[in-house]
């Protein structure tokens, strides 16, 4: 990263991308991708289970390797890049965060549903006590408008969050929503607290929304190589970098290295199903259902012989939030047994 660039890229191929492969990263894949990202100049490499530290479970899926092994593998090859982890209060605990710190993580993103920002204060304090950089992910961000997000950001910033991300977990935000939210947060936060954007591409807006956020003053962007991430994927790292450079914004990262990594490693060796806006992921954006549900919905639809889109639409009507994967099974079982009465 060049000293001149105010922009800091957090590549989340190795964390959010984990959702797209049911958390089955091999250590060697983590080493290759982390080393490449470090070489390309990203500020931080996010690593671990897609649902954050401590999420190895029946509810969210068992990873091939525990978080600590993957974090240590990434930390061992990163010369400049920081290693970032996510933790969702209610899922991951103090012990998980201490383990991650000991394995080499130095940036924590405390992720809460945006309406429940106060449940993250305990973990923000803990992160700072452990000497880590503490950021907040306000997830399921479509639930609040600009003023609500700005208020939530103010609460976590007061508790020591050095950066606050709008996390569009369902890929449901429109570009104008993002612009107004970033502007409101920027206006509400002290200058030293950064605003970040974390997009999902379910409505094919991830790159456009992220670029708009940067124009409005966001300086932290979460991206993923080849878009590898939950649902239709995250904001594609190498696409966003190209767009920002065309806009005259110095990203400080090397486009060609990122493209090679995306095509030669992520697409060629990691990606198992296309990361794309198809009828399932587009329905998730349309119905405002967290993108992380995708593979769980596909499995439940198979198990109960249902159209996955019907499950997604019903979940949207029930206003589910990040973390409620058990609702997928519940809704599918209800539909299959006919207890469900709607169309």
């Amino acid at each position, binding site marked *: 990263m060049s000293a001149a660039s105010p922009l800091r890229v957090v590549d989340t191929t190795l964390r959010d991308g984990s959702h797209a492969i049911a958390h089955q990263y091999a250590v060697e894949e983590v080493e290759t991708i982390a080393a490449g990202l470090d070489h390309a100049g990203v500020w931080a490499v996010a690593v671990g289970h897609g649902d954050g530290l401590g999420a190895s479970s029946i*509810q969210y899926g068992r990873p091939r390797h525990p978080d600590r092994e993957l974090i240590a593998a990434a930390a061992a090859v990163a010369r400049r890049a920081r290693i970032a982890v996510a933790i969702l209060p209610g899922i991951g605990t103090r012990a998980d965060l201490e383990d991650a710190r000991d394995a080499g993580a130095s940036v924590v993103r405390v992720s809460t549903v945006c309406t429940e920002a106060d*449940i993250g204060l305990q973990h923000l304090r803990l992160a700072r006590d452990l000497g880590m950089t503490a950021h907040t992910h306000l997830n399921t961000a479509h639930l609040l408008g600009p003023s609500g997000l700005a208020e939530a950001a103010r609460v976590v910033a007061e508790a020591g969050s050095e950066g606050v991300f709008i996390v569009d977990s369902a890929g449901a935000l429109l570009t104008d929503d993002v612009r107004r939210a970033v502007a409101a947060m920027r206006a509400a936060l002290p200058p030293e607290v950064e605003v970040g954007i974390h997009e999902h591409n379910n409505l094919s807006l991830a790159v456009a929304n992220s670029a708009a956020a940067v124009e409005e003053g966001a300086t932290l962007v979460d991206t993923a190589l080849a878009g590898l991430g939950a649902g239709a994927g995250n904001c594609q790292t190498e696409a966003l970098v190209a767009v920002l450079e065309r806009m005259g914004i110095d990203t400080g990262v090397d486009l060609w290295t990122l493209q090679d990594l995306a095509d030669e490693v992520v697409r060629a060796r990691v990606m198992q199903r296309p990361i794309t806006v198809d009828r399932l992921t587009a329905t998730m954006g349309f119905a405002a259902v967290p993108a992380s549900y995708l593979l769980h919905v596909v499995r439940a639809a198979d198990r109960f012989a249902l159209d996955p889109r019907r499950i997604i639409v019903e979940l949207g009507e029930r206003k589910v939030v990040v973390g*409620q994967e*058990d609702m997928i099974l*519940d809704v599918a*079982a209800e539909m299959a047994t006919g207890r469900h009465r709607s169309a």
Partner: protein
Amino acid sequence: MPALRVAIVGTGNIGTDLMAKVERTPDLELVGVAGIDPASSGLRRARERGYAVTHDGLDDLLERVDGIDLAFDATSAAAHPRHARLLADRGIMSIDLTPAGLGPPVVPPVNVAAHRDAPEVSLVTCGAQATVPIVAAVGGIADVAYAETVSTISSRSAGPGTRQNIDEFTTATADALEAIGGAPSAKAIIILNPADPPILMRNTVYLDVGPHEPEAIEAAVAEAVSGVAAYVPGYRLGSRPLIADGRVTVMVEVEGAGDHLPAYAGNLDIMTSAAVRVAALRAEDRG
């Protein structure tokens, strides 16, 4: 048989809901309510109903009211240890609804009998109250290798105690799944959902089990559900349990009685109901 003389410490939502439930319980006689906020609506309500009340806390209540047999502590984890000492010094039994976790953890249908003489018991968490009976019931007929629970509650029913100590909620619930539910290893997850209208509390219990008869598991789950429903009428099975490939998935929802707390707050209702249940059993023991 004379009724058990009980006091309520704490005049917030939980304390006020307890008042309604104690009034409905024949073997319990409410003799005093202690708060610390003179403006609290719970305290006003208690005064209007003719109970001895104080806004100077438990110490003052103990000065004024003699012969208290049992006290419910519905204050905070920080205040509880001092209350527990004051009560123990006077030989008054206490039932702790805070997350302090000092006394032995009790989930009424599972292990209340083991702690009949304990001077103090803790009700752990709403998640534990809602899920431990299912884990214990399945554990009674099959080998449970692992238990995992997901409790989802309405944001509106999550008070400051839960919000500020969410880590303690997950670890205390997981500990109870092992210690009382009998699972050799366990994980607990809590999710807050802000939907409006508010959702009912719902719980998913996942169990990895050894060889079993699916029908026996279904029957054990049904029996456990009716055991809890005996004192929490809104506790019920969601979809039929899913049993396949060594995994049992049970979903239960909890609708509150709507006494003081709204019906969606099943997570709070199951705590106050469990507290009154334990007190009623103590009254029976004494009688």
